[in-house]
């Protein structure tokens, strides 16, 4: 796949269709891949990379990049295309300045899962036929790709590209038997006390680094309410449990109905807080109360919080979780 992508990038750069390529750039240890804008063929040949660790969703970079001079080529995985569509729906990116190539994805690896297996001192990883051979200073290790697949990929909602100018590989299909609400349901089945304990245990680790907000393709406000000194909520540090709750509830609410469930928030959290469980709760509630809705699936669709029905459920009736 990488070869094909590189080839297309060079062709499109060469014939002047685009003047920049937004992709992933190789790092020091295979897994530490950085999103990058390549401006020349040399840079592409030198640094361009696509492997199982290219999990970063590139669509948010287009908010800035699509406002620059000339057309940019972007590679989008299926789940990234949902964010891409959503950004188009919100008029945050300029579609005409983008050449989007959809690339197949069979699930991305999570280096944290390698670490969790006690694999450390990594000097290289070979990926072949669903098996990773990890070379480390302590000897080689072999793991199956699915063993270290990111959680968000294990509950992938769709392998379908919903927006592209060109495809490398198949268009893919929506995953029918997706189990992404399992954990939400499990939490809903708990008692309020248990849920409270669960969330305190998770959110109390928050260090308010804002990585979840800054990576989120739905968080594209010019100035976040939490950065507004006049809002009275701009404390940067996790001062106490209220601050942590407040930040995460409000952030999840601001993206409710717009979150495509790309899972970037949980991926980047340095404290491994399962933030996607907040977003998924909203998605599940929207589905239950207002009918199935997948943000980003159709850029023409009205967002669930931007419309209403006269016979909508009453807040008091929305049982939601069981007591």
């Amino acid at each position, binding site marked *: 796949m990488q070869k094909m992508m590189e080839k297309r990038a060079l062709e499109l750069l060469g014939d002047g269709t685009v003047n920049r390529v937004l992709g992933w750039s190789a790092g020091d240890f295979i897994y530490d891949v950085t999103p990058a804008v390549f401006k020349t063929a040399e840079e592409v040949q030198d640094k361009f990379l696509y492997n199982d660790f290219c999990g970063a969703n590139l669509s948010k970079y287009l908010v800035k990049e699509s406002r620059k001079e000339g057309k940019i080529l972007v590679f989008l995985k299926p789940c990234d295309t949902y964010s891409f569509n959503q950004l188009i729906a919100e008029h945050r990116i300029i579609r005409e300045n983008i050449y989007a190539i959809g690339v197949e994805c069979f699930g991305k690896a999570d280096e944290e899962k390698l670490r969790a297996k006690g694999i450390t001192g990594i000097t290289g990883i070979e990926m072949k036929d669903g098996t990773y051979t990890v070379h480390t200073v302590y000897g080689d290790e072999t793991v199956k790709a699915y063993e270290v697949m990111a959680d968000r990929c294990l509950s992938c909602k769709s392998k379908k590209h919903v927006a592209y100018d060109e495809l490398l590989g198949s268009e893919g299909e929506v995953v029918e038997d997706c189990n992404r609400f399992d954990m*939400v349901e499990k*939490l*809903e089945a708990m008692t*309020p*006390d*248990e*849920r*409270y*304990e*669960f*969330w*305190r245990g998770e959110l109390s680790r928050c260090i308010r680094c804002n990585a979840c907000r800054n990576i989120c393709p739905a968080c594209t406000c010019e100035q976040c*309410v939490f950065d507004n000194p006049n809002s009275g*909520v701009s404390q940067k540090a996790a*001062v*106490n449990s*209220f*601050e942590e*709750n*407040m930040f995460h*509830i*409000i952030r*999840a*609410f601001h993206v*409710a109905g717009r979150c495509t469930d790309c899972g970037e928030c949980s991926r980047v959290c340095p404290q491994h807080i399962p933030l996607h469980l*907040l977003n998924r*709760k*909203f998605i599940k*509630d*929207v589905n239950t*109360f*207002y009918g199935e809705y997948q943000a980003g699936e159709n850029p023409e669709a009205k967002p*669930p*919080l931007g419309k*209403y*029905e*006269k016979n*909508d*459920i*009453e*807040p*008091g009736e*929305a049982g*939601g*979780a069981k*007591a």
Partner: protein
Amino acid sequence: MQDVKEFRPKIVAFCCNWCSYAGADLAGSARLSYPADVKIIRVPCSCRVNPMFILRAFQRGADGVIMAGCHPGDCHYTSGNYFARRRMTLLFSMLDYLGIERERTRVEWISAAEGAKFSKTMNEFVDTITALGENKRLEDLRCKK
């Protein structure tokens, strides 16, 4: 130090200017009582209530928050309360999901003619919150005396 005090809940009620606030007025002029623990904040429309308002009320010491607006279909601005309804449905469901007692938040539709309903609702809500006790799960310790 033992300090036994009767628990008096603090309630914040966001009332829409056109219906519920007028309803509160009517309750007053009809001498229908509602507990003094309820502090009313008048808003132009229930739709003005931002989820942040609700959380801030809890932060500042509220033990229960109620939002009251025009009956669906009667919004002074045509549709504000419909949007508010969706928002509060989701927000309250989220608070519940985080383990914050469901009963601490409530939405009621109270028209300008429903002074009695206003009084009844507030009395009920205060009773519910009194039974629940102090808000511990969404408190900001810094704001406690």
